[in-house]
């Protein structure tokens, strides 16, 4: 048996870490999406839901989830960058002509769509979690004037007033295209990385993966789209 450190550093183990952490992030995205869609049910529903998340288990649960997400994210990004650098080093001299037969735009741009996602996630957290950017809309959730201490924050107003700004909506919509592009390759790829060989499952996943990526991207986009088109109002 080899030392675990050698195995940990190997390409295949790093690839496995990337797939497992990536799939857990996809699961999170599905949960996140179902929460977002509560906007369409109205102000009370999404406000109560958001309040519930923050107070569940005396406010402990959200920290457990955040810690988990952070570690998956760090694992995913570090393994992705490690492997991308090794892959580049594996082909020092390039071809003059290359005709690809099987790869896709999504599969060839994974590192770039991933890095754009990384910057998007930081922006998104700064916007809705930390209130560090667009703080005028963040303030709508809990106006200091209301002297709000134990009340339920009005995240509905925060979301709607933010997305009524075309520039913010466009930034989010473009980012969702990146999510769709990344997951277009990622989901089916992870199934292969995890070693699924079942001949009934694999062809289904090669269709379901890209399908799911479109559903996730469209689902998230529906919120800013509905707001900018005026279907959802303050």
């Amino acid at each position, binding site marked *: 048996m080899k030392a675990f450190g050698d195995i940990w550093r190997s390409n295949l183990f790093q690839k496995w870490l990337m797939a497992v952490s990536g799939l857990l992030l996809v699961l999170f995205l599905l949960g996140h999406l179902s929460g977002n869609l509560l906007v369409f049910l109205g102000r009370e529903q999404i406000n109560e839901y958001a309040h519930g998340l923050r107070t569940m288990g005396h406010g402990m649960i959200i920290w457990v989830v955040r810690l988990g997400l952070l570690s998956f994210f760090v694992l995913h990004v570090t393994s992705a960058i490690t492997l991308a650098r090794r892959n580049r080093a594996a082909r020092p001299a390039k071809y*003059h002509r290359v005709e690809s*037969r*099987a790869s896709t735009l999504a599969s060839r741009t994974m590192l770039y769509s991933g890095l754009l996602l990384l910057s998007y996630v930081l922006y998104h957290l700064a916007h809705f979690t930390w209130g560090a950017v667009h703080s005028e809309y963040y303030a709508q959730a809990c106006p200091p004037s209301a002297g709000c201490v134990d009340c339920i924050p009005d995240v509905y107003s925060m979301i709607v007033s933010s997305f009524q700004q075309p520039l913010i909506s466009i930034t989010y919509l473009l980012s969702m295209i990146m999510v769709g592009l990344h997951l277009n390759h990622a989901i089916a790829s992870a199934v292969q990385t995890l070693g699924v060989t079942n001949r009934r499952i694999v062809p289904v996943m090669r269709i379901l993966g890209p399908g799911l990526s479109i559903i996730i991207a469209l689902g998230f986009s529906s919120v800013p789209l509905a707001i900018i088109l005026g279907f959802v109002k303050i």
Partner: protein
Amino acid sequence: MNLRLHIWRQAGPNDTGMLKTYDVANVSEHMSFLEMLDVLNEDLIAKGEIPVAFDHDCREGICGTCGMVINGRPHGPVARTTACQLHMRTFKDGDEIYIEPWRAKAFPVLRDLVVDRGSFDRIIQTGGFVSVNTGNAQDGNAIPISKPDADRAMDAAACIGCGACVAACPNSSAMLFTAAKVGHLASLPQGQAERSSRAMNMVLQMDAEGFGSCTNHYECEAACPKGISAEFIAQMNRDFISTTFGGKA
């Protein structure tokens, strides 16, 4: 037909090398691609120039020795066909053809189109075998093997070790080759005893040789002259991970 060739010329491993342009005239459509290169080389020798070095042996698509990237595709444009079995009828008069060696850190160019594929041999040495005690040969049918298992083993064993999978992979990964070897022996009862250590050792040797990692583009599968399925890669992934976590593959 008359063709214009752009061929990678490199005098030795440490030479920088460059693409050089050659015109060949009167190429018959019945020639194989290597025969066309033979014609060019006769020409070069007659002119007192150094002929283009390329690897070849069986010239019937079974040894895996030949290999060059033709117009951006390993072994050329025809699927499931080695360069020696590629015929000039797939080209037409006036075509320009780019001919380059396999490109990978683990396949250093020795000269022109010839690369050193010793890294494949070293991967095989770490596990691509079944250990047997010496003594009398076993009876032919002493170990029964089911038809599906035998078929699966044969599908994997079709790999001729040509290296086109590495050449086609944007990451110069050797996953398809290694997975074919691992999958071949993993399909047979004789391969079970060493199945876990084989998967582990061969995978780690790939890294040590400087091959890249798989990003599941499946360019390898499309380029493989023997149509080895990427399903074997999934199986090797699984064998490797279950070995890592202490279980057996």
